Every structure is written in C-alpha cells, then in structure tokens.
C-alpha cells in the first residue's frame, strides 16, 4: 500500500505577517511616527511594548515548533477536483514550550486547496493524529516539497512556519465524472440521440415508472406514450463480458486546432470508465496508442491505466480515418473508444465512440 510518510530530514523556518498582523504593523508604524515626531517617552513606552509583543511572538512560536516531528500520510489514490483526506502525525519531543496553535499543511504539489488541520496543543512526549482535506485542481505528477507546520501563537500577529522538507512525487489522477451508466447499460439507449454512439448492444432489463432523480435520457418514450406516465428503462449489467476502453490522445492531421479542455474532459471520461469499472468489478482492458493493459498481463492494470492518464498529453499523429488500434478485438468484447479530439474517425462497428461531440456535451452539462 503506497503510504507516503514524510519524516523530518531537514527543516527551515519562515515568518509571515498574518491578517491581524497587518493591523498591528500599521499601528506600530503610527506609534513609531508619533514617537519620532513628539519625542514623547510614553509613546516610546508603547512602542517598546509593541516591540515586546513581536519579540514574544517570535520567541514562543519558535519554541512551539522546536522538537516537533511531523509525518504525513496521503491516500492511495488522489483524484483531481475531489477532496481527499490527508493525515498528519505530529509528536513533540523535549522542549521548554508545548506546541501551541499548530496548523498543518503541505508545500508544493500543484498548490492544492487545503482545509488545514489545526492542533490547539501538543504536549511534551505527545503524539497526535490529525485529518485535513485537500483538493488538487488538475491531474498530473507533482512534487510535494514537504509538510509545513505553522504556529501563530500567542497573538496571531506573526505566524512562523516550519517546513519538514522532503521531495516526493505525487500522482494526481484525472477528475472522475458520474458516467457509470455507460458501463451499466452497455451503452444501449443512452445516447440514442447522439449520432456518435454506434453499434449499441442489448441489455434492457425492465421498464418501470419514473422516479425523481432518474436520467431523462433513459425515458422509454413508447411506454410513456402508451401509459400516459413517464416510464424509464432499466438496464442489465452484462456480467462476465469484457469491456475494452481505448483512449486516443491523438488528433487527426486533418482536424483543426485541438482544445485543451476537450482533451481534459476526454481524459476524465476514460479515467471515470476505469474507476467505475473497477468499482463495479468489471473485466476491463485498457488501451491507448502504444499501450495495452489487460488483466492477464497486468495485475494492477486499472491503476496503471490511471497512471497513464495522469500524465497523458494531447498529440498530433492520427494518420488513418480507421486506426488499427482496435484490431484483434473479439466479438463479445464491448468496446468504448474515448476520442476527445476527433469527431469523424471510424472506429469500426459495434464500438461506442465517446468523441469530441460527446466531450462538448459533457462539458456543457458540467457547466
């Protein structure tokens, strides 16, 4: 299990002025100017107290962060745009001052949003576990430079940050969309209006009354017309059937300029198919130009495909209108091609093609 544990190998300290600190700094400046202008010793006395407050803030935050050991554990899989739980383990060794008002965070790694865990007090010899949430904005492989612990004790005017440094590569998988219906239905009926879906295979299980929350695309129009009530189709999962997801990152030579957003949507669609397929326990094969991941060859082919998708970049190079990538497919294999940069490639009969138009529709829906 890929547990990321960052131990303290090296550390350094940073000081920052916080929100209240800016007000404090402003008043410090006002008092300084008043003191210099008037030569009034009581104003100098106030200035001394403010200086004392800064010195105490510096000293105590420094002592608070001394003898601190921090390690952190990241989840096994991290998906873009999805909040993941991040665990920190903090312990405090011998020190004059206990750890006060500690905020934990990470540094580097594509600057994710993070709901930082906060620890009010960490006594000498204590070890505590904390949980925070973080969310990466995009897929990719990033380098985490380390864990940080910030202390703004006691006055919240200066925060001192200690970095527990260690470079670590983190793979962020593409964002996952709720498109598991494609797999559940085997494609039938889902995209009836979408000319890009071809060669659908069967699997209609039942027709029942519409329940709020059902996808309107699954409405059974004939039954609805007959009964006068909204009726919806239920699909049967094709147990034992092999699903083949092919991802095409290449843009046809004849195509106009590519679109990064479309490509990212396509990558997420491919990742979502793998994600949901694994969750549903489906047999799956993944492929891409120069890549074929099958369960009999790769024991962890789901993860390998997600790893590939985390880093894949768009490319030009699709020469044929009918690529040979899918040659050798068996008849019982249910093939889904994710081809976000093209809309006129013939992937052969019996293939669901989630192409540029699908990606556009998906983006529209998500907006």
């Amino acid at each position, binding site marked *: 299990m890929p547990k990321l544990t960052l131990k303290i190998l090296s550390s350094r300290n940073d000081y920052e002025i916080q929100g209240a600190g800016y*007000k404090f700094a402003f008043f410090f400046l006002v008092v300084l100017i008043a*003191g210099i202008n008037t030569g009034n010793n009581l104003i100098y006395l106030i200035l001394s107290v403010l200086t004392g407050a800064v010195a*105490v803030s510096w000293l105590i935050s420094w002592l608070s962060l001394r003898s601190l050991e921090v390690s952190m554990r990241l989840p096994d899989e991290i998906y873009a745009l999805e909040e993941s739980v991040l665990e920190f383990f903090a312990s405090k060794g011998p020190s004059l001052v206990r750890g006060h*008002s500690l905020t934990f965070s990470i540094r580097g790694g594509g600057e994710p949003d993070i709901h930082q865990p906060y620890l*009010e007090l960490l*006594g000498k010899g204590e070890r505590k576990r904390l949980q*925070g949430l973080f969310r990466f904005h995009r897929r990719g492989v990033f380098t985490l430079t380390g864990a940080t612990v910030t202390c703004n004790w006691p006055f919240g005017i200066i925060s001192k940050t200690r970095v527990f440094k260690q470079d670590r590569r983190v793979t962020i998988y593409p964002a996952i969309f709720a498109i598991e219906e494609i797999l559940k239905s085997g494609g039938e009926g889902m995209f009836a209006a979408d000319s890009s879906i071809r060669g659908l295979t069967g699997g209609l299980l039942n027709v029942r009354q519409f329940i709020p929350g059902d996808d309107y695309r699954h409405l059974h129009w004939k039954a609805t017309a007959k009964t006068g009530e909204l009726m919806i189709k239920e699909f049967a999962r094709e147990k034992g059937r092999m699903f083949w997801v092919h991802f095409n990152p290449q843009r046809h030579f004849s195509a106009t300029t590519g679109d990064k957003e479309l490509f990212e949507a396509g990558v997420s669609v491919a990742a979502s198919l793998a994600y949901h397929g694994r969750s549903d326990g489906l047999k799956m094969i993944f492929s891409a130009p120069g890549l074929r991941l099958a369960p009999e060859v790769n024991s962890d082919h789901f993860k390998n495909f997600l790893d590939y998708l985390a880093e894949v970049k768009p490319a030009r190079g699709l020469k044929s209108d009918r690529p040979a990538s899918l040659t050798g497919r068996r008849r019982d294999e249910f093939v889904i091609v994710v081809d976000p940069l093209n809309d006129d490639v013939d992937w052969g009969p019996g293939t669901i093609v989630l192409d540029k138009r699908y990606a556009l529709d998906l983006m529209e829906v998500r907006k």
Partner: protein
Amino acid sequence: MTIVSALRILVLLQAAAAGLALTTAGSGTAATGVLMMLITAISWVIGGNWPSNPRRSKYFWNIMALVMMIFFLSEVIVFRDLLPPVVRLVVFLTAYKLFNLNFNRDYFTVYMLTFLQLLAAASISYDYMFAIPFILYIITSALALVLQTIKMGREREQFTRSLITGMSPAVDSPRVPARRLSGAFLISITVIAIAVVVFPLLPRFRTDIIASGARNPLHHLSGFSEIVSLDALSDIKTSGRVVMRVTLSGDGEALRERLRLRGITLSYFDGNRWIHSNRGGGYISRSSDGNYYINDYPDERNIQQEILINPLSTRAIFSIGLTERVRGPFGRIWADGMSSLFMTKRNFSQFRYVTNNYLPSLDIPVLQAVPLHNEERTLAQYLQLPNNASFSLTDRYQVQELVRQIIGNADNRYDAVRRLEQYLKTQFEYSLELSRYRNDEKKLMSFLFDRRIGHCEYFATALAVMARSIGIPSRLVNGFQMGQYNPFGGFYTVRAADAHSWTEIYFPGHGWVEFDPTPAGGQESNFAAETPNFFMGFIESIDLWWTQYILAFDAIDQYELYAGLSNVAREALKAVNRATDALLALIPALEAGSLFHTILRIIVQLIAVIILSLIVYSAILRPLAKLIMGSRKQDDQQISFFQQAVELLKRHGYELQETSTVREMAMTLETESFGKLFSDIGRSYEMARFSHDDLLIRRAYAQGKRRLELLRTAFESLSGKS
C-alpha cells in the same frame, strides 16, 4: 466560562483601561475618559446588542453619528484644537462597537479604537497614574489576543472536521482553557519585561515635523508666563499641579531660605505688564562633553540641581542663582545677558536637566557702601518707566514722593531698598482674591495708594517701580519658589501654586541682588507649608521615579546608561583578568607574557565562562523552565502510577535502569511472579502517556492505579511469606 464571554469581559476591561488612561491624562480628556468608563459599565449591564431591535438600533446610531459629527466639527472650528474632539469621536465609535459586539471583526475594531485612546492619553499624559491603565491594557490585550487565536483556531478546526465528517460545526462556544490562560498571563508579563529592556535602548528622536495637538498652552497651565500681567495670576496660585521636581546637592540645602528658581528676567514695564525687552545676549552651543558653559563663577556656594520639568509651554530654563553650566536636551541655548537662559523651542514634553549654579554671598557692609544715587548710564533700560494712561509722569512723581517718605534719611542703596521692601511687606496685605479693577483704574497706583492689597506681582512691580522712580536700576524676575520638600525622595516638589515674582536691584561692583517685597503669606504656597505624610511622600516619590526614568528619560540618560554599563563590563573584564593572572601566578615555572601563559589564560577564562554558564543555567534558567513547564503537572500525574511502581520495585531490591524503556523493564522482570502485572502496568503507562484520546487516557490511568495496588498487595504477601 466560554471564550466568547471571556472575550467580552476582556474587551470591556480594555475599554475601561483606555477610559482610565484618558482620565489620568489631564483636564482636556478627563471628562471624556470618565464618559468612556461609564459607557463601558452600561455596556456591561445592558449586553452586547443595544438597542436590540435592529431597525430601532439603526435609527438610533445614525442619529447619534449625525449629532457627534456636528459636535466634532463645531468643536474643531470653535476651539481650533484637534486632539480632544478626535478623542471624543473615537470614544463614540468605541461606544457604538461596544453596543454592537457580534463578530470577530467587531472585537478587533474595539481593540484598535481603545488602542487609539491609549495613544492619545500617552501623548498628553505625564502623570504616573497612567501606568495603572497602561499595564491593565497590556494584560487584557494580551489575554484577548490569545483567546482570539484559540477561538479562531478552534473555529477553523471545527470547520475542517465538519467537512470531513459531514456533520455541521458545533454551535456552542468552547470554554476557556484555564491552563492556557494562565500561560497567556505569563506571556503578557514577559511582554512587559521585554518592554522594560527595550525602552531605554530605543533611539530617541524628536523631529516636530507633524504638529502636535498637545501644544496648546492651555494644557500646560503652570502659573508661569514670559509676560507678566498684573492681576492675571490669582486663579493659578491655588493650583496644586506639579510643574517640576528639583533635587539639590552641593550647598543648596544650607541656603534653603534664599532659594528661588529663576525663570525669566523682565525689564520693560508698560504700566500693566512686564515684557522681556532684551534682545541682546547670544547663543551657546553644546560642548563636546555634553555641557553648555554659560559663565565662570567662584567655586564656593555651588549648587547642583537636577530638575525634572513638566510641560510648561515656555522656553525658559529654570535654575537657582547664576548658571555656570547646564546639561540637558536643549539643542542650543540662548543667554539673554540678564541671567536668564532660554531653549530654542517651548517645552511641550517632560525632560530632565542638570545645572551647576553659583549663589552670590550677601556681604551687607559691601552693599551698604553703595551710595543711594550712582551714575549708571549703561543700565538705562532698568530705569525705564512708562508715561501713558496706565502710569503717567504725575504718577511717577507721586510714587517718588512716597519713596522719599519711606526711605527717609537712608544714605545708601541697600538700606533704602530694604526699607521699601519692609514697607511693602508690613504695610500691605497679600491676597489672591482681588476684586476686579475698573477699566479706567490704574492698577499699580491703585495698589500703592488705594487698595494696598495684591499678590506677588503687584509687590514685585511696586518695588521695582519705586526703585526706578528714584534712579535705582531694578528689574522683575518671574519664576518659582522651591515648593514642598519631600523627605522620602529627598527632592522639592514645585507646583503651579509656587509661581512667584520678585525684584532685583543693581549694586555697582557687586551685581544684582534679590529683594522679595511680598508679605510672608505670599512667599509660600499652601502646599509648601505642609509636610507630606508618609503616603503622600511615597506617592510623590513614585511620581518622581516615573518622571525621571520614564517621562524624562532621554538621549543623555541613554548615553549615561551605556557608559555605566560599559564601565561595569570593563571593570568585570579587568577583575576576570586579574583573577586569572593571580591564579596563573600560582604556577611558578610559568613565565608571564609567554605564549603558553597566554594560551593557558584563555583556557582558564573559557572554563570560567562555562562554569558561570552552568551556574546561570542551574540557578536561573532551569528553575524558570520548571516554572513554565509547571502546567504539565496534570499530564505527569496521569502517569504517576508507573513511577510509583518503579520505586516500589526499587525498594524491594530490583535494579531498574532509568534509561530503560518500559518494555525493557518488563522483560527483565518477566520471570518474576509479578512480571505479568508489571507488564500490564507498563501497557497502561504507554496508553496514558501516548494516547491522544482523553477517554483512553483516563481509562489507562484508572487501570494503572488498580494494577499498582495489586502490585503493592503482591509485595506485601511476598513479604509476609518471607
């Protein structure tokens, strides 16, 4: 108590401290300060939201804001003084916030507004009472900021936790962590301690670039003026406001009866007022040793004075007698040629200076040798008398006639002037309660021939004019009497009520001699007559200390402090070197000055430094650390059962290494009959020591204690068998 309630109490205490600071600052803001405290008390009683109806609250505060703005602008336009109106405006804003305390930002706004009030009070205060609200403000601010940090941290923690667990954040405000609050109190004391160290080190500047609201001379009403106008002093003579404190050394105490603090010498009289007319003299710059050298006088009767002066809005430098040299934060000094010294700017702040003065001896036979009339053309300005509606030529003749009657057959100047002095002292009455003069009434003539009652300026003016009327050069001196002696601090407290005027008469070959025609009742203020009781004396001493080391601490004091510390360091170094040399001299073969001697000397000194550091660490730092770490007692208590178990084993002869881990100890005892029990105690210890779950810690503590009792019982039974 919840953090929110504690924050509310602290913010009210801050507001009260700011109000108290304004009250102690002086008459300009005292009423505003009282109002601030009153508002704080009302806010305490009523609560944080008033008026409670939002609509009514909006109307009420809008109207109040409008009224306040009109009041503020009127005050600024009419009185042309910015500070008090600004303070009142800040107090109004504070009141608004105190009655509308809802969010964290409201608290921060109150912190800022009360800080501005404290700053305003500091800019005009010179009373030691300022220290009380100041310290209160520091402590409450430190505690409030600490609680705010805890509160905001907990809110953030709850928010993050709610995101993870999906449960909404707790609505109840967390309770005040008492242990951390006591730590915060210690922190505020540390801040004060650091401030005490930093204060004398901060470089002192005074640029006067931005005009200060504290410059209104009304704030510094002292009884002293550079222009003496008859009938202008009476209100001031009753004021007990302290204007300066004087510590004497040298011959000062022996000459107490003759001591007066000379301020300004006035030579031009226009019938109603004395004006400083001398535009001669010259500027004196500071010499390299920090002194301003004014004149050379004989060494005898030298009086050294250390004067701590409060803002008087005057340029005069006060001192007793004739100044030889003076040392203080003056820039340049102007000596006017009439024995008066002036700064280049008026004093609007407290400062300290030291003067060395000479008090001429009164050799009466020599003075009596001076004839009544002497040709003194060079002193014409001191013979000037007006010829106007207030004092005409006829009046002059009338005074001349009176003077001749008084001096009678006196044939020398000293006797004649002394008779005039005695005449005024004995035949006239001193009073501060004078009825108003009519507009057409000649004040001096009325005093001499009609009313025969007045205060010191009438008497001094009368003697000077009487002397001039018969051709004796005279002038008026305005300053202070010595005031009240404080036996506790060994200094004189000079108050506004000690303001005084006297006359100086010129004696050729001798110089100017002081005469004071004011009757005895006017020569000492009510305050000077009283001897301070123990309490008042103690308070006065604190006041002096406050003025000397806080208000008047200046660049010269800093220089002296550095010089003193340098001397101490130098002497300490010398002592160390001497001690080292003495130690090395015990080695007979060692040649002083040799390389080996030098190396050995360094080694010995390094050892001395290490020993000294160890002493400081064990005697000061370690106890201090224990004091600070004292709050861990409760944590230690949770694992005390383990320590007791170890001690129990030791008492029964089992050697356990303190450095061993719990499991190592358990392994050494596993063959014993109680081995498993001790191992269990060890597990309880680990749980109590390292768990982060309070419930588990409590459970482990209870288990540990039970197992410790079992261990005791086991040993008791083993002892019984043996």
